[in-house]
């Protein structure tokens, strides 16, 4: 019988400091055969851990089309495990099992062809893999608009990718809520000052679009209001939720809410499917 708790060793092949307490890691599995069988989809997560430091769920933030070659995580130092993880360097190992959960829907299955991606703070991480995949598919009939709310220029994530995304046709809007930007653009992206919801008033929101959201519960509440005002149907809105997870496959109960398990039924959900579950967006 396969042991569902068994993680695989992966080595760090590249590491980058994304923000003062945030590191980006590129990993390859030590067992190459396992690596070749590791197919993830954007929005899925993996359990990442170190012996003696437990495991936690992290969204895989690389392009799923490279999934059997490498995978990337972006990790912020917040707890015991992540405090250790951000000290790791090239050549160090960590232990990964997954991929788990249901990710963002395939673009071809969306009723609305265009895509609006809205991320707040660390919530931008789970959206990165869908952006990386999405920009490759931009065409005259499939446009992509990105709203990213961030504390300040120092906390900016993935800024080394912006020009590529923009060159491929994405419209990227960044907004800082703790710092007045010194220039009207950062790394090629339009940049403003205020909460993420302000972007909905300042920028012409893309029409005929599906919306992909990730951020803290408070952001969901206000962004959902804005989306409703823009006429987005519940069915066209998808969100990625965060919960504590121990098993990753719908048994241990930590991520449960009402009748759903965020690990197994999500972490990405269609808004219409979960909006009536009490307390789903509340701490």
């Amino acid at each position, binding site marked *: *019988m*396969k*042991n*569902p*708790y*068994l*993680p695989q*060793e992966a080595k760090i092949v590249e590491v980058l400091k994304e923000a003062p307490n945030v590191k980006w890691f590129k990993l390859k599995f030590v067992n190459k055969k396992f690596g070749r069988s590791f197919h993830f989809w954007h929005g899925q997560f993996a359990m990442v*851990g170190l*012996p*003696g*430091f*437990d*495991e*936690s769920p992290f969204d895989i933030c690389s392009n799923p089309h490279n999934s059997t070659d490498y995978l990337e995580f972006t990790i*912020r130092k*917040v*707890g015991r495990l*992540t405090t250790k993880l951000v000290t790791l360097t090239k050549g160090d190992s960590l*232990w990964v099992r997954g991929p788990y959960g249901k990710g963002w829907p395939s673009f071809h299955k969306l009723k609305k062809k265009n895509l609006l991606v809205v991320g707040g703070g660390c919530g931008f991480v789970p959206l990165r893999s869908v952006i990386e995949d999405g920009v490759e598919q931009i065409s005259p009939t499939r446009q992509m608009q990105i709203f990213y709310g961030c504390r300040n220029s120092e906390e900016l994530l993935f800024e080394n990718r912006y020009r590529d995304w923009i060159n491929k046709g994405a419209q990227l809007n960044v907004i800082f809520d703790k710092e007045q930007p010194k220039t009207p653009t950062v790394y090629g992206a339009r940049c403003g000052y205020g909460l993420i919801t302000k972007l909905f008033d300042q920028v012409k929101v893309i029409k005929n679009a599906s919306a992909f959201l990730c951020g803290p519960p408070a952001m969901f509440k206000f962004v959902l209001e804005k989306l409703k005002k823009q006429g987005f149907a519940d069915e066209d809105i998808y969100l990625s939720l*965060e*919960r*504590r997870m*121990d*098993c990753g496959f*719908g*048994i*241990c*109960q*930590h*991520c*449960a*809410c*009402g*009748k759903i*398990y965020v690990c197994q039924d999500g972490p990405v959900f269609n808004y219409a499917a979960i909006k009536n579950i*009490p*307390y789903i967006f*509340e*701490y």
Partner: protein
Amino acid sequence: MDKNEAEGLLNKIKKEYQVYAPVQKSQGCFINRIEDALQVDYSGSIPLDSWKFLFFPPQEALFDENFKEPETSYPKICAWGMNVLDLKALGLFDLVFEGDPYYQKRRQNILTVGLSVGAPSQENFEDFQLFSLKLEEDVLEHVPFDIFLETMQDKKILVYSGSAKGRQVLEKNKISDYVNIQFAGLIAEEGQDQRMLELKEKMTKGYEHKVWDELDKICLACGKCSIVCPTCFCYNLEDEMADSDKSQRLKKWGNCFYPEFTEIAGGFDFTASVKRKILFWYEHKFVRIPEQYKVPGCVSCLRCFKVCPVAINIIKVLKNLDKKKNEKPLSPTGS
């Protein structure tokens, strides 16, 4: 078979297996390892603790620091005297941990012997009917067991075998007068339990129900109900230092009433209030387990009520869910 013969069988089993059985102690009936067949309590009391610790230990090592599985020996254990309610709970565990190799290895070495005592007594049978727990003829076809002993009115004991393992033990001990039962899964032929479906519906629609605010005021969130509950199976995966420099990954009983159960990085907790914790517990039993496994998440053993420091009675709580808005609710506590 009579009681003496049953004790004879137990003594023979004891030569090969560590035997655990209900035992009367000054504080009540508990499941204990027994040395003597005479220690077994046949009064029909439901033990205060549940059998789950034999199948799902409070703590077990999954891996060493190199993620190698430890060499664990799984002793041959006989769980003697499980009642039908406890066997139903075991059936649920068998489903939950179907893909868990640690559970499966341990489970293979456990011989389960059911007893008809401990089933709901006639005087409170009405309460148990809340869960549609009918003592129908085919109940044994829908619970897992190796051997089952049914005490008849005349004190004679009918013997059933529910598995090849059970048959082997009986044959080996020269008992040939038994009935074979073929396990047909936990769900009865007529389909999913109607009361379970009804409660699931009521739970998902009843979040604003006063019953939760009432429980919010009185529940201490001590988590004792979860510890004794035969169907509570949540767990944590945690690393602990086995030695000064060696860690191991453990699977440990979780408890949804304890702090940090639903806490995420940054200290945000999705079940910070008592109301949310108790809802979470009820949702697991009456929404998620029925949804996921199609069987009731409560076997109505009332262990939770017996250990609750403020005497919350699950049956009265569920009866309140049945009540209409204008009806006066029952006190959720007391018998």
